[in-house]
């Protein structure tokens, strides 16, 4: 009884020609697509890489811009702010997305590699503190959040919640959000402060990973860009100090400066942008492109 084996062989026999057929069809499609469009030497390619926080925004811009300017091809990838800046320095991308300012060490490395990063603020973002929907805690002060992430507070009952251990979630260290959070929240914006994240902080490789864990684990606390928050998570109101009011993140509270954990989002180019890259950046700063910023849950830059 070698029926399953013969069936297996049959599948292989059938699938092989099928597969080659698919490849031929695919090849045909790309071929005809190219010939129907613009000849290849007219196409301008912009490589865009970096922050995972910005990647959805950059993709939305790229899609819209390619419709408006069919001669420009944009390729957008994520990987983290550090990854993007490293790629800009190594000359593999034209525009690096970053959710933090470029570091002085990175500028040094850039100069060594004959690269000259040029900074453009493209939007603003609020970092939301998120917990599970079942968590009764609604408000935290910046000092409490810092104490939680540095490992001083380890149980939710210390901040008015249930008697549960706190599971701290963070993005990986190559994330601009991680670096921003370390400087502005864990260290409370104090340059002298050398507090680190508690060693028990879970470093998750994606916003998706943080969302998944927050949704199902009532012990968890996390942070992420406002654009990634869904209604399956609970956003915490944050106060700069115990005397200040608790503010929820929104476009208004970021633009009027009330929400304390907000930052600028950047694009970096090698030197001041020129030619078709400049056209793209100019368009991004236009009112039309900034509307997409609002749609995706970020805060547009107001002139």
């Amino acid at each position, binding site marked *: *009884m*070698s029926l*399953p*084996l013969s069936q*297996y062989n049959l599948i292989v026999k059938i699938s092989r020609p099928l597969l080659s057929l698919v490849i031929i069809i695919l090849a045909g499609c790309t071929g005809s697509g190219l010939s129907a469009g613009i000849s290849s030497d007219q196409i301008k390619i912009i490589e865009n890489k970096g922050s995972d926080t910005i990647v959805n925004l950059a993709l939305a811009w790229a899609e819209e811009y390619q419709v408006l300017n069919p001669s420009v091809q944009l390729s957008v990838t994520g*990987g*983290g702010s*550090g*990854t993007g800046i*490293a790629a800009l*320095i*190594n000359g593999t991308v034209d525009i690096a997305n970053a959710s933090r300012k470029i570091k002085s*060490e*990175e500028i040094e*490395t850039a100069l060594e590699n004959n690269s000259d990063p040029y900074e453009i603020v493209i939007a603003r973002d609020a970092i939301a503190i998120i917990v599970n929907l079942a968590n009764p805690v609604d408000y935290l002060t910046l000092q409490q959040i810092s104490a939680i992430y540095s490992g001083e507070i380890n149980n939710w009952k210390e901040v008015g919640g249930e008697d*549960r*251990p*706190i*599971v701290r979630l963070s993005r*990986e*260290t*190559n994330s601009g959000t991680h*670096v921003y959070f370390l400087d502005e929240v864990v260290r409370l914006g104090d340059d002298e402060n*050398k507090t*680190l*994240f508690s*060693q*028990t*902080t*879970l*470093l*998750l*490789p994606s916003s998706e*990973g943080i969302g*998944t*864990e927050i949704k*199902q*684990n009532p*012990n*968890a606390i996390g942070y992420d860009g406002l654009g990634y928050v869904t209604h399956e998570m609970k956003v915490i109101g944050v106060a700069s100090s115990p005397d200040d009011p608790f503010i929820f993140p929104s476009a208004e509270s970021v633009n009027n400066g009330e929400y304390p954990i907000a930052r600028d989002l950047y694009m970096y180019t090698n030197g001041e942008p020129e030619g078709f890259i400049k056209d793209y950046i100019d368009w991004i700063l236009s009112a039309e492109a900034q509307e997409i910023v609002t749609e995706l849950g970020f805060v547009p830059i107001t002139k």
Partner: protein
Amino acid sequence: MISKQDIGIKSKPPKREFLVTALIKAAGYSAIIFVGMIFLFLLLESLPALREVELSSLLSSRWYPIEGYYGVLPLIGGSLIITIGATVIALPFGVGTAIYLSEIAPRWLRDTLKPLVEILGGLPSVVLGFLGMLILSPYLRTLLDLPTGLSALAGSILLGGIAIPTVVSISEDALDAVPKSYRDASLAIGATEWQTIWRVTLPAARSGVLTAVMLGIGRAIGETMTVMMVTGNAPILPTGLKDLFSPVRTMTATIAAEMGEVANSSTHYHVLFLIGIILFLISLIVNVTASAVVFRQKKSQERILS
């Protein structure tokens, strides 16, 4: 045509054979050369780390490279605890399945099950990672009342699952290669089926089963994507069995998560290569130990038979 070729072969056998021999020889040596070159590359890229970072810092228990903390012990510990956990799971399940397939299951069932087990081995590890993240880790958290299910245990279970097909496939081949006369002799002197399996067949296939387990361990220790998704990646130095239930960070996940970000030739870059070489040495030790044990057993077996 055929007759011409025949004549051709007959007239110049030495030259043809020389070519084939040389090709096979080159193929054989190339593996050694590749490994040697990879080792050399890792060594050259990682040696500056030993100059740039003090040994006491490397052997500390804090890994936070963006602030210059390069303690690699938590990462080594994380990889080891997950690999040990995976072995504890894969060994009984894998060898058990192999014994069932080879010794107990009827022929048709074995012909169905073995390809299925091998399909399990072909599952992309990122898919297993997804299952781990969405199903296994929430389940472990509620079942064992853990703070979070993203833990060494979740990693061990999934890696065990990844290693099982390797263990089953190779162990089953080894058991199958044991001559039927061994079993017949054992049954003829009145041993039960179980006694025959446990005392005769399995010991006779020992070296193959051991190789299978070692290859399984090798598969587990090098696995990256799954562990990155389910272990939480917190660089905590494991100190005991209880740490199986807390998050850990493995060497592979660290390299995968951080290599894309580092600037070329920075200290962080060199330290990541150092971790790579540690990983390389650990798998080398596992393999050398395995072949040494197998070699010794073969010698003692030969003594008994002669």
